[in-house]
């Protein structure tokens, strides 16, 4: 009891910069963290999958005192479903009442609100408006309000057309009222997940990348896992394999309890001037299949329109298509006519690990120390911390809370709020940042170099983008790709470029 108290008190006392090479590996495991071959040692918990759910689960178990190893098939973390989403921190107002999803979203949001400042994670308290565009939709708002209240989101309220217009003067014609949910917010989906994982690592967890799981055996009281980066032994295993959830489950059970049906969502991102067109997250009245096309700001001061909901077979390929992107833009212009003529800065697609059912797919085998968290199809970013609490309670309800000091890394501050010049928190406003590398997103040399170091060092250009935002702005690398190629030489696979056979040393062309 004394130890628990002590540990709790020391939380946040040992803040370290996220860029520091802190908590490199569990002393117990002594394993390298960049996909090297394992040496020896047994972990208390192995987490399969380094998406946002796996990151949150690893953090929770490690902070609870277990020794954790995270194994990730890809060379980069957040390389599956977690790499493309809308970045909304939901309240759970529209989740099925009493569902596990509702509980996890609510608990996850609460924990995010409690920890985001100490981890240096942004929170844009925009609130959301569920917009009704016809009588039928307007007629459904009261039931949505009742659902919100039943989910404990009691600050939600119905707004008249005039009230909606006053809040969002740029909305197109035909709005018929709205449900306002003040607690809905915007976060940075990548820095959040990176922070969870980094905090697990800073407190002793181990990360193995390029470690696809090929076989799993229960041997006495432990699991033996064969991975592409060598064998791993652990007492308990939590599967957070996202788009491969059913495939991975089959390595542990005779058959999977669900089937992944990848559901693609395409997004269009408008440049900063468009962000002034919407203050709230603008949601449609949801249907059974999807939350529908959302318009919201991003944590980086852009404006997002999406996602679509398209069933497909591929679990890895998330392609956009011009016809759908144009349709998204058209829909966006109906909602916000001012979007016409605004510049598109990026388009992307994400894959949701949907299954044949809407519910989260949780499967527990307490006897064998095994938990599968599957089918986190859409609310994973909001629910991740709540799911992690749930996993810890399921797998070992008696587990003590932290008994030692907790290290809290601080993430680089990347957020931009177009209405609030909090930009002075960005590194470019701090002394001795070494110069700007990415001019559109004002990413500094110090930020890029930091992202290439430490236990979560970027290993791909995509990973470097998620950590720093380089090349994510309006020019998409027109101005900075050459400098990035030089800065990242030998660090990324694939590299930005390959050396020319006879590189001109002075920039002069050969005759």
């Amino acid at each position: 009891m004394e130890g628990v108290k002590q540990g709790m008190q020391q939380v946040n006392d040992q803040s370290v910069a996220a860029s520091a090479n802190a908590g490199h590996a569990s002393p117990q495991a002594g394993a390298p963290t960049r996909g090297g071959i394992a040496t020896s040692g047994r972990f208390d918990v192995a987490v399969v999958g380094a998406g946002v759910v796996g990151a949150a689960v690893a953090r929770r178990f490690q902070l609870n005192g277990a020794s954790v190893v995270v194994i990730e098939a890809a060379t980069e973390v957040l390389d599956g479903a977690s790499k493309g989403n809308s970045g909304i921190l939901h309240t759970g107002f529209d989740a099925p009442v009493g569902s596990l999803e509702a509980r996890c979203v609510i608990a996850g949001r609460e924990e995010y609100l409690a920890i985001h400042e100490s981890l240096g994670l942004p929170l844009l308290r925009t609130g959301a408006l569920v917009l009704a565009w016809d009588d039928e939709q307007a007629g459904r708002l009261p039931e949505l309000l009742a659902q919100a209240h039943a989910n404990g989101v009691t600050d939600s309220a119905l707004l008249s057309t005039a009230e909606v217009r006053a809040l969002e003067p740029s909305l197109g014609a035909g709005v018929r009222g709205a449900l306002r949910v003040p607690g809905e917010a915007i976060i940075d989906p990548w820095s959040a997940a990176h922070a969870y994982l980094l905090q697990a690592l800073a407190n002793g967890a181990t990360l193995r990348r390029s470690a696809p799981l090929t076989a799993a055996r229960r041997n006495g009281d432990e699991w033996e896992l064969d991975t592409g980066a060598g064998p791993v032994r652990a007492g308990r295993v939590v599967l957070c394999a996202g788009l491969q959830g059913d495939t991975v489950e089959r390595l542990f059970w005779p058959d999977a309890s669900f089937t992944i049906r990848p559901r693609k969502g395409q997004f269009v991102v408008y440049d900063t001037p468009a962000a002034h067109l919407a203050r709230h997250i603008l949601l449609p009245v949801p249907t059974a299949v999807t939350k529908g096309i959302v318009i919201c700001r991003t944590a980086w001061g852009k404006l997002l329109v999406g996602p679509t909901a398209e069933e497909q077979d591929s679990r890895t390929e998330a392609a956009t298509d011009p016809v759908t992107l144009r349709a998204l833009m058209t829909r966006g212009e109906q909602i916000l006519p001012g979007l016409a003529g605004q510049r598109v800065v990026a388009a992307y697609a994400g894959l949701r690990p949907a299954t044949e059912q809407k519910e989260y797919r949780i499967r527990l085998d307490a006897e064998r120390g095994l938990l599968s968290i599957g089918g986190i199809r859409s609310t994973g970013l909001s629910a991740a911390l709540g799911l992690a609490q749930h996993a810890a309670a399921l797998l070992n309800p008696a587990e003590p809370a932290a008994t030692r000091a907790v290290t809290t890394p601080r993430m680089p501050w990347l957020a931009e709020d177009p209405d609030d010049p909090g930009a002075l928190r960005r590194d470019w406003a701090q002394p001795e940042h070494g110069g700007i590398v990415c001019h559109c997103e004002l990413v500094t040399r110090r930020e890029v170099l930091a992202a290439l170091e430490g236990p979560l060092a970027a290993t791909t250009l995509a990973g470097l983008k998620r950590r720093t935002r380089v090349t994510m702005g309006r020019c998409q690398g027109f101005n900075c790709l050459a400098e990035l190629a030089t800065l990242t030489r030998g660090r990324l696979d694939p590299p930005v470029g390959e050396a020319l056979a006879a590189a001109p040393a002075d920039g002069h062309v050969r005759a």
Partner: protein
Amino acid sequence: MSAPDPAGASVSRPASDCEVAIVGGGPAGLSAATELAQQGLDVLVLERHAEAGGIPRHCGHPPFGMREFGRVLRGPEYAKRLVARAEAAGVRFLRPASVVALRPGGALVITTEAGLTHLSARAVLLATGVRETTRAGRLIGGTKPAGVLNTGALQALVYLAGQAPFRRPVILGSELVSFSALLTCRHAGIRPTAMVEPGARPLAWRASPLLPRLLGVPCHFGTQVEAVSGRERVEGVVLRTGDRLWELPADGLIVSGGFIPEASLIEASHLAVDAGTGGPVVDAFGRCSDPSYFAAGNLLRPVETAGWSWAEGKAVAGSIVQALRSGLPDPSDAVDLVAEGAALRYLMPQRLTPASTAGFQALQLRVARPVAGTLSLRHDGLELWRQRLRALPERRVVVPLDVLRRAARTAGSPARLTVRLEEPAS
């Protein structure tokens, strides 16, 4: 969490105040800087890269410099000479220095390697140039592998970093810069598999397909890039010719041209932006809606040659000298010029000021598609002047401002004139 406004922050002193601050050290900024320094003004160029010179720094091919140096140079040599000439004239440089905000009256918020700082100038010249439209801006679908980039990024990779991002790319576009991409590829031992152009003919010049053919690169007109395929690297480029979808194996895509003024600083500022050019609204002196600010070069409109931008920098430098020494005519004396007609893409300048030897002497305009029609100047529906116009997209069209001024005089002192492009009904 709410931080003080950067301009109002007392956290730092001005880095160095100056009479004229120039944002952007490309051909326009450097020519203006040189001219201003030669006129005895204290000039500071803020360049966000470590080296000034602008885009020509990484255009490793001719022709540059005929207008400026009387000889044909390759881009890097041309850029060096521009910098040397400015330095010799006494121009000061702050580099790398990124301007992050423009405030009323010529106050700039800047970040350098050392951090945040401020600067205040009697006049500021904005010369931030252009960038190319990205893959996203062209709504090219597919996956997002590495190896899709603009000509600018390719040139910087090849000429500044000595790296090649691919070996067999497709080039999208047929503007001058697209051929620049082709030459850059050739220099780096990269062999493009094809050049594709959505339009029916090349945008650069009629004989331009000869060059890729000479180099063994097939050209496909009337062809769009629909999508990119591949996981980590580009594996193919999906094209659409009419209704036919077809795929070319390729390990990269060069998205060339489609220039856009690099005006994000202006968009985030108090200065007015012109919807047609995408650059700042300027009068014939190159003066913006805040008379402390001027603009020159490709920021004004997409896109002109380095030599043209250089001449513009010199012309606007003349305006700045006059503004600081004897004063320019009051901005309210200007007449708004409004573009009319679907095929008329933009006009620059957008405000007509009284005749002067300083500033621009011609109205620049561009058409959105091949046009054979009539260009007219109108006031309240009354035609004051007309001229036949045959023009192609991406080609320079100019009308002497004095012609418009003379025509405008017949309307008394109008506040607003329309420049209309009419095409005969087909």
